[in-house]
């Protein structure tokens, strides 16, 4: 049995690779599937073009994986293509090196005529030159859901809200783990432990008894209402801040920044950085100032500098590394996967599972580059229900109906990422209390007031961080609805009873008109 810690792209990619090679696996995840860095990125499926000059290894891996993923995970990829836009003549030297790099790497690209560029991207760009590249859009939550479904079909297990509490390395070899889940602590036997905890990999490696040192950095992203561009747009220069825009489902995402950070939890975006990032976006897309921002969010990159000593996160390679803790005086049977990118998650899994197979002494070749990740087929033997359930629209922004919500399992956050409710312009202003009502009806032990409070808090964090332009008005509306219409508690609620405070009945004479 192999235990994988972390149900992000890396952890689920490893579990999928393991089950395909016939190895039993259980994934444990402290939060939800994708609640770490894998659910907090801009959605770019790299072609490698971004790293063609600065990071050839990452570039080559990205281009290889770009082609593989378009083949095996088509249901989660929106193959929009992308453009690299040179905004200033002064970036000419970089452009020449970039074209050399692209040719060397064999990544296809072609120059785009400026006259047709705005039609191709759907937005007028500040372009001096532009090149088409095979970038695409990766729908992270969709792909994680596909991985989880396919892992379960082949007998793998994914346990959410389950945290690693200890590792049994008796005699210098991994023998089991102690996990802490919703039902308390329990021990599980394990032959191999794989640490795929992303930015939390430091904490997990400490439990293994061989602490790794990661170089964490966070990226800031802004979500804009409506799909204002049709393709990915990158700025053609040394990778920097605010130089990627990705059309993602019904929105567009501007990224990103690279700021060193100590803690693995995604920090609240600082307003100054949000303003700066938005202004940077203007260099490439002058009209972006009139776009409507919905929210800001951050994701923490688990970069691994190894022995390199640099304080600038942009200088750290986007390449990944599989660490066998045995080679560093750690226990046998413990592996950590660090660094890397969403785009290369499959390759990271392949390298890791190759090592695990060799350790277990039973090598079978990897098949994840050939077996497509298909959505589960509906059971054709089930009669089609004549009454499709509650047709009432609960979330107007995203047209989510009652029966879609009622069909969801897991936490309220899972309902959100599974149905997309509260992800539109109003960010749950009108629908959060409705969805929480359905959620509490389905989960009788849950406390309505604290669920709603928690959900609002999470939505408001991102909305507040980008409360600029029309979004400031939207946030004002959210406050008015919450506190004046619904009478929600301004302070942290202690219980249902103190939400309503009764006025002193005799304090003032009652008078009628």
């Amino acid at each position, binding site marked *: 049995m192999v235990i994988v810690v972390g149900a992000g792209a890396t952890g689920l990619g490893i579990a999928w690779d393991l089950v395909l090679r016939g190895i039993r696996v259980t994934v444990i995840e402290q939060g939800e599937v994708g609640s770490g860095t894998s659910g907090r990125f801009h959605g770019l499926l790299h072609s490698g073009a971004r790293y063609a000059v600065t990071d050839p290894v990452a570039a080559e891996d990205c281009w290889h994986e770009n082609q593989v993923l378009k083949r095996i995970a088509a249901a989660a990829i929106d193959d929009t293509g992308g453009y690299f836009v040179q905004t200033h003549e002064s970036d000419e030297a970089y452009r020449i090196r970039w074209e050399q790099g692209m040719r060397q790497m064999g990544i296809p690209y072609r120059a785009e005529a400026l006259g047709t560029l705005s039609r191709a991207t759907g937005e007028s760009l500040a372009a001096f030159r532009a090149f088409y590249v095979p970038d695409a859009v990766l729908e992270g939550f969709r792909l994680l859901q596909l991985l989880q479904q396919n892992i379960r079909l082949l007998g793998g297990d994914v346990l959410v809200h389950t945290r690693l509490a200890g590792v049994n390395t008796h005699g210098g070899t991994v023998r089991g783990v102690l996990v802490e889940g919703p039902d308390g602590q329990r021990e599980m036997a394990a032959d191999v432990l794989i640490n795929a905890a992303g930015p939390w990999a430091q904490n997990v490696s400490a439990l293994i008894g061989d602490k790794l040192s990661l170089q964490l950095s966070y990226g800031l992203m802004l979500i804009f209402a409506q799909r204002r561009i049709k393709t990915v747009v990158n700025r053609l220069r040394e990778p920097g801040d605010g130089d990627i825009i990705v059309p993602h489902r019904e929105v567009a995402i501007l990224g990103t920044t690279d700021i060193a950070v100590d803690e693995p939890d995604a920090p609240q975006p600082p*307003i100054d950085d949000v303003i700066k990032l938005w202004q940077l976006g203007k260099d490439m897309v002058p009209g972006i100032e009139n776009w409507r921002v919905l929210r800001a969010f951050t994701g923490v990159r688990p970069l691994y500098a190894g022995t390199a000593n640099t304080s600038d996160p942009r200088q750290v390679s986007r390449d990944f590394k599989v660490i066998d803790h045995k080679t560093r005086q750690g226990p046998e049977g413990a592996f950590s996967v660090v660094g890397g990118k969403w785009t290369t998650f499959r390759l990271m899994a392949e390298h890791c599972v190759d090592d695990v197979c060799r350790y277990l002494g039973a090598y079978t070749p990897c098949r994840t580059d050939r077996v497509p990740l298909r959505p589960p087929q509906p059971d054709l033997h089930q009669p089609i229900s004549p009454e499709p359930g509650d047709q*009432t629209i609960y979330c107007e922004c995203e047209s989510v109906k009652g029966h879609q919500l009622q069909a969801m399992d897991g936490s309220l956050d899972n309902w959100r990422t599974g149905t997309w409710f509260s992800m539109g312009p109003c960010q749950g202003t009108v629908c959060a209390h409705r969805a929480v009502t359905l959620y509490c009806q389905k989960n009788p032990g849950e406390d309505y007031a604290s669920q709603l409070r928690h959900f609002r808090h999470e939505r408001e964090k991102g909305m507040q961080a980008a409360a600029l*332009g029309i979004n400031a008005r939207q946030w004002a509306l959210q406050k008015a609805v919450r506190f004046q219409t619904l*009478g*929600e508690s301004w302070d942290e609620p202690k219980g249902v009873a103190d939400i309503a405070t009764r006025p002193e009945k005799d304090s003032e004479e009652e008078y009628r*008109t």
Partner: protein
Amino acid sequence: MSWTVIGRGPAGLLAASLLNMHGEECRLVAAHEGTMALWSGVMDRGDPELLPLNAEEWQTLWTLLSRLWGSMGIETRLGPALTLSCTGSLKATFLCPTWQYCTPDPGPLWIVAFEGLPDSLQDIHLSAIEAATGHSPFWQRLPRPPGWDDSWTAVRWASFIDQTEGKFWLKTLLQDLNPRVPAGWPLLLPQVIGRIRTGEILREIGRDLRRPVFEYPLVMPSLGGMRIRDLWQAWLRNRGVPLISGSVTEYLKHRIHLDDGRSWGADHVLMATGGILGGGIKVLPNGVVEEAITHRALGQITAETGWGPVFRWGSEANGSLSACGRQRSGWDPDRDRNGGAMILATVYQALREQGLNILTVPRKGGLMSHAGF
């Protein structure tokens, strides 16, 4: 003296009404619908200790508003009381239209929800009501009416119930349930009981069931506020106040200018433009907070200022221009639950800054002209 009021939320409508009652020449101009459709029409007072007027002045202002609404056909209940939200929380309020449930002393309730109306109170909210009132409510959900489909918003529900077919659908179902509910318990229905004939329908159901019948408010679009808005605007039109649709871009040398080139003279201007919520204050992408009409910078959002004070930033008097409602600085009705008091106090202050003290100057001709009522 000619006046222009900008904005047709509650502050703008009130300011224009008071000016009209004092015989002043007044125009009301607004770029948008105003915020009336966002709230059910209750006016909250918050903590009276925090308010900038004395008790007698307050009583005059509240009575003035309730009589003004009364003259439009909106009956109200005045005094501290509690009303119920669609999530089962009780909320303190002060002036409340009589169609909405509002009482100083909540007792046992019969609550009805409509299937297919997502903001109906649900069984999950009942424990909150029980905790707050000390009584377990009787709760029923009515099935969707024939002809319902997923496009039915609250407004569509209201026009259904305004019609004979809808009223009959509702009355029939309620009459079946009525014997099972103890006598005397008030019946609470979602706030979609007609857009126009609300009072009449509620009274008719009440007579049939021999019990008081009220509505509980839903989130926007809110029928309560829409009814008040429609009656209020009609009242102003009937009394000769021009309601102009247009976007004011500038007030310069005592002239108002619209973005389409129209312009007129105004000796005094009241900005009832709703602060950040109404669009009268803009937060620019670079973090500068600016008054939309005068383009005056009110501040800059930085990591240091944080968001805490921003919703209290606003304007006051600036020559012949005064701000009222949410546009006025210092108020945060979401935190302090004093939206109604804010409207009354700021409109009074703004008019007074521009030379009209509605508490001392007798009103001319007609409505409530005798001093102090």
